[in-house]
């Protein structure tokens, strides 16, 4: 383990050097222009103008002071984004080292350079800038999709426990750390007696904000169990809100000379008002936004704008009343997510998602980057005692909090969190951007501001680097319960529905109403009133139908994806796939004009097959049903392969035998592994199975079809590449595809791709049934037109 880590860190270090070289070059090329100029202008700004005194018209003027602030901000963002691009050149590094670590490292390097040339970092981060411009997008990422996913996947009472841990846990942390630090301050040896209790509490509230991004990425990657994930997630979400509330409160209190007991109660009351008020505003604005989008069908271009403006408005209004703006924006986003998505077009949805993602990642990047820079350039007040004790207390109180608070809620949980989960929870307490930003924007009136900033940075660096890097190996080591969250099976959806109804029904019979009852009531209310008001086309859609449609569309989309040479749609789809990797299961979005194509392809491919399966599941057996299934599966696999044409080449030797297996498992989430294993089994058994079955079959047609069977596989395999080529040639053809398939296919089969050839070779190496006729026949058919078979089957049926 250690050696691995070591070798890895060396690798990382090597990469970092490369990265930093890149960045230095970027630094030289971009901010150099900035760094040279700024000393000239702030005072001399007007003096760059004196050219004008001369009578003739200036041909060339420089007015840097005018653009200085936005210019520098842009350059900073660009630099940070370059750094981010750099990490992903070699993707393995981001698996092992959290991105925040890397960003901070780069920031440190840049800061070192700036320090050596005595350059001040720009004032990107002032109090109002942070709260008004950087925080909202950072928050919005969480609400954008993750939370809803969590709510969807678990019907367990979500909110209470999450709230418990987020609110009580954060309070626990802040107060615990604050008071113990106050105790430390009383020790004379450290020389910090001047820090009073309020300031300690303020500081504690700053460093109890947990940064979710790093932990959640790790959790998602190793797919820890849902419960743990949700608790951590909810903690991160609400903890920010609680922290900011506490921060505001304490920073107010810290300036008061004397604190009276009444103030404590007022503080508590205020805490409630701030939290609930924020929620209320958020939901209100969410409804208003949903209602607005009901009427935007004619002006699709500005739909995303509405969404952003309303959430930002919610944020600002909440700020106006000095209530929790984070809560407001989160609740607003949640409400909107629920209703708006059905009102706006697919295109707008994609836009919104992308913009939110972009904004949040930019602000996050900038903050971490900035953290690195500031660590070097700002003046520090070192006080080892205070610093070390801060680190210690931050860790101890978090662990204690988990150990004490979790057993309290465990009895109320359906699945209690065990010790391993608790360890994951305690260890996942990384501090991040919010802490830093809050510390950095502390008012100057606090005497020991520099000490606080230093201590905060120390805590952040410590947790992000040490815990962030080691959490993944640790979680894998202690083997925290995992979950597999792939619920794309139709059956699963049906039965989940069934269970819900059953539980509601039984509760009705018993006369006991627990959360199923309330869920049911809410859904009824929702369907009856809210949806009718807020959604344009408000037919309640059953989850099953939705899933079914989604699956079908997904299939179609994959076909289309592999097919389309349409440039306009390509980038969107590609980026969506990347997004898919990142967040586990976003709904697929389509460009509207592609929908028709999809439906056409669907009706040609999927529908007919499904129709026939009706027959075969009936008592009347259909002789060549396996072909149908074959097609379905074959199609999936070939789609999967065509997803990653690059990887196909390399995996051919391995998959010669199981030629239809997907080259990588990475797409497994889309097609549940059950199906994969099915394909696997099937391939493995079919080699034996078909020849064996052959003599038994006395049905004439069956015997022939049995003989042809292996070659059908071949055909269906070819089916896809050929359709691809076909559609590339004539995308508009897809409507008339069925009729044109045979002729087209002849042409395409001639110039069939290398993949196909390779596959056929692989196929022929398979131990086929020894009969010469059998061997001969596949050959015939591969030379013949594979796709011709499909119409044939239809006729047979």
């Amino acid at each position: 383990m250690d050696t691995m880590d070591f070798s890895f860190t060396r690798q990382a270090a090597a990469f970092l050097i490369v990265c930093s070289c890149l960045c230095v070059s970027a630094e030289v090329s971009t901010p150099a222009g900035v760094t040279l100029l700024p000393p000239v202008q702030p005072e001399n700004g007007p003096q760059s103008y004196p050219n004008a005194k001369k009578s003739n018209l200036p041909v060339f003027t420089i007015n840097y002071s005018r653009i200085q602030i936005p210019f520098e901000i842009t350059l900073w963002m660009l630099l940070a984004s370059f750094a981010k691009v750099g990490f992903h050149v070699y993707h393995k590094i981001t698996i092992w080292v959290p991105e925040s670590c890397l960003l901070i490292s780069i920031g440190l390097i840049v800061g070192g350079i700036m320090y050596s040339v005595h350059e001040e970092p720009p004032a990107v981060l002032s109090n109002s800038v942070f709260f008004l411009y950087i925080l909202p997008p950072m928050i919005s990422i969480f609400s954008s999709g993750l939370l809803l996913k969590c709510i969807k996947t678990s019907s367990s009472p979500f909110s209470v426990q999450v709230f418990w841990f987020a609110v009580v846990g954060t309070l626990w942390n802040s107060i615990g750390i604050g008071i113990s630090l106050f105790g430390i301050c009383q020790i004379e040896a450290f020389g910090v007696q001047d820090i009073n209790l309020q300031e300690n509490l303020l500081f504690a509230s700053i460093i109890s904000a947990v940064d979710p991004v790093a932990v959640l990425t790790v959790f998602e990657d190793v797919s820890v169990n849902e419960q743990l994930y949700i608790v951590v997630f909810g903690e991160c979400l609400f903890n920010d809100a609680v922290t900011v509330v506490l921060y505001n409160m304490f920073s107010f209190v810290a300036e008061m000379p004397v604190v009276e007991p009444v103030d404590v109660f007022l503080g508590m009351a205020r805490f409630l008002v701030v939290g609930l008020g924020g929620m209320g505003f958020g939901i209100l604005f969410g409804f208003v936004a949903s209602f607005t989008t009901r009427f935007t069908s004619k002006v699709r271009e500005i739909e995303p704008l509405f969404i952003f403006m309303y959430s930002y408005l919610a944020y600002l209004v909440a700020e106006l009343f000095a209530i929790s703006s984070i809560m407001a924006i989160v609740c607003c986003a949640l409400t909107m997510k629920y209703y708006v998505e059905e009102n706006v077009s697919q295109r707008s949805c994609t836009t919104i998602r992308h913009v939110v993602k972009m904004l949040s990642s930019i602000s996050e990047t900038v903050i971490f980057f900035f953290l690195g820079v500031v660590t070097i350039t700002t003046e520090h007040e070192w006080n080892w005692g205070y610093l070390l004790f801060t680190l210690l207390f931050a860790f101890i109180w978090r662990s204690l909090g988990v150990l004490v608070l979790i057993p309290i809620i465990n009895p109320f949980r359906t699945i209690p969190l065990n010790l391993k989960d608790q360890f994951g929870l305690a260890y996942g307490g990384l501090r991040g951007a919010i802490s830093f930003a809050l510390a950095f924007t502390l008012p100057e009136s606090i005497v020991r501001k520099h000490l606080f900033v230093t201590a905060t940075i120390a805590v952040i660096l410590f947790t992000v680097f040490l815990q962030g890097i080691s959490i993944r190996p640790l979680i894998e080591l202690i083997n925290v319960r995992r979950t597999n969250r792939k619920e794309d099976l139709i059956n699963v959806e049906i039965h989940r529905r069934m269970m819900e109804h059953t539980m509601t029904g039984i509760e009705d019979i018993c006369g006991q109403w627990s959360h199923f009852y309330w869920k049911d009531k809410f859904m009824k209310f929702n369907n009856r009133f809210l949806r009718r008001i807020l959604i344009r086309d408000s037919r309640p859609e059953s989850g099953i139908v939705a899933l079914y449609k989604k699956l079908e569309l997904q299939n179609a989309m994959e076909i289309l994806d592999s097919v389309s040479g349409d440039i306009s749609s390509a980038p969107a789809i590609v980026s969506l796939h990347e997004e898919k990797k990142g967040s586990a299961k976003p709904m697929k979005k389509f460009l509207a004009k592609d929908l028709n194509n999809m439906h056409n392809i669907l009706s040609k491919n999927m529908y007919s097959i499904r129709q026939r399966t009706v027959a075969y599941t009936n008592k009347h057996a259909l002789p060549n049903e396996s072909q149908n299934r074959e097609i379905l599966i074959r199609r999936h696999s070939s789609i999967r392969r065509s997803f990653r044409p690059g990887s196909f080449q390399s995996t051919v030797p391995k998959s010669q035998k199981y030629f239809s297996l997907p080259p990588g498992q990475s797409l497994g989430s889309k097609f549940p592994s059950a199906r994969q294993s099915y394909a696997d089994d099937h391939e493995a058994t079919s080699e034996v199975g078909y020849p064996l079955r052959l003599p038994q079959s006395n049905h004439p047609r069956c015997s022939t079809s049995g003989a042809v069977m292996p070659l059908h596989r071949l055909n269906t395999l070819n089916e896809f590449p050929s359709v691809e080529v076909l559609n590339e040639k004539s995308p508009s053809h897809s409507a008339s595809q069925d009729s044109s398939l045979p002729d087209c296919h002849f042409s395409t089969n001639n110039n069939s791709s290398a993949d196909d050839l390779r596959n056929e070779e692989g196929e022929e190496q398979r131990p086929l049934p020894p009969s010469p006729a059998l061997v001969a026949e596949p050959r015939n058919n591969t030379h013949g037109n594979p796709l011709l078979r499909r119409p044939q089957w239809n006729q047979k049926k």
Partner: protein
Amino acid sequence: MYFLHKRCYRNAVKPVCEQKSLLPLNIQPQTEKCSFPVFFLFLVVEQVKHTPTCVLPLRCRKENLENIPALAENPIKNQIIEAFFDKRNQHGNEVGSFQEIGFEQFVMVMSHFRPPNLKTTKEEKQEMRKEKLRFLFNMHDTDGDGIITLQEYRKVVEELLSNSGAMDQDAAHEIADAAMLEVASTNVPQMSPEDHYEGITFQHFEQILKDLEMETRMFIRFLDVDTTTMHCGKATS
């Protein structure tokens, strides 16, 4: 253990005790003012049973359950009601269905929905999961032959979808077919062309739902517990 709502107890037990003539009868879950949940009535009667005046146990028929107003909108109402009268859900080996059930049978059915607690071991959890799956399976398998046929499956899906109104029957059938195909392809990979997939057996049912988390879903936890006023003599686990 089963508990009752305190307020309900006050409102209902007293009247029941006062008119003892009420007892040997079919229960009427609906009275003019409030509709008594069946379970509640059962408990009341079980309590009253121990008083010397009334000894006859309460029986419950299908009609009684059907009259529960809250149940009216449930799309799979029939299956739920059937489940209570199904002998397969009595943890015995019997097949068939009861005409009327008593408290014991009712509790047996309800026992499928025990929530797990901290002390339940892994094996017990597995067992509970299996029980719950079995319960679900029985709800699907209406004719009791141990196989969910396509017709049965279709019917369920249709009922599940009947809420959403606009759905036509074909779509429901399609979905059921697709789901059936899914089961078939997952479970019987090496199916030869002559075979046909008869239907979902319990093993296949378990297999297809193995990823579905049941623990958080199929359980009833009684809120408003009030141990002092009410606990039932029939305290099963």
